[in-house]
């Protein structure tokens, strides 16, 4: 982690579900608004941790809670999560800037504020990548098709 300078956001890795409407969190399906800071709000005891309702009494992330924007330190961990999430939807793996209150953990972070840094789409079209790039103003590329484990040779 490069959190030595408290003036510079931490950069972690996470995944999003990509829909026609934009980027969505894979756990709670919360929309990450384009060109707006994503603020974590705790709604402990409710169905989701991020919503338009007022915070439930504490600033996110709280050390005693599990609220906040989640990110990994290593790309491989985000990619592993993406593989578990592949169910027909387009998944984006990418770096995310994190700031505000940030809780560093062994393998990642929980943060108060966030915005995507860059994205790689697993699947999707050039048109979808272009639209996400334009809406969110971040670099977006498409991952090359995965090579089957037993392709070639033989």
């Amino acid at each position, binding site marked *: 982690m490069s959190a030595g300078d408290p003036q510079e956001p931490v950069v972690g890795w996470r995944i999003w579900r990509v829909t026609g409407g934009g980027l969505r969190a894979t*756990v709670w399906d919360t929309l990450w608004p384009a060109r707006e800071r994503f603020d974590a709000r705790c709604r402990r005891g409710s169905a989701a941790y991020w919503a338009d309702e007022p915070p439930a009494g504490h600033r996110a992330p709280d050390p005693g809670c599990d609220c906040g924007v*989640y990110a990994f330190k290593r790309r491989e961990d985000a990619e592993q999560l993406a593989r578990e999430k592949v169910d027909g939807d387009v998944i984006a793996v990418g770096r995310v800037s994190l*700031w505000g209150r940030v809780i560093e953990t062994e393998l990642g972070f929980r943060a108060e504020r966030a915005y995507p840094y860059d994205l790689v789409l697993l699947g999707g079209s050039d048109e979808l990548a272009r639209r996400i790039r334009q809406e969110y103003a971040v670099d977006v590329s498409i991952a090359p098709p995965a090579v089957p484990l037993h392709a070639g040779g033989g």
Partner: protein
Amino acid sequence: MTSKSLMADIGDPIREIEIEPAEEPVPAPLPLPEPAQEPVPA
């Protein structure tokens, strides 16, 4: 996948920090579209 399992994925807390960047890494909003103007008769 729940926040509980995600919490397990990222491990135990190490420390808490406050990061207040001089400039937040959020791009400027798109300019509003120009209002449609009806043609003015000559």
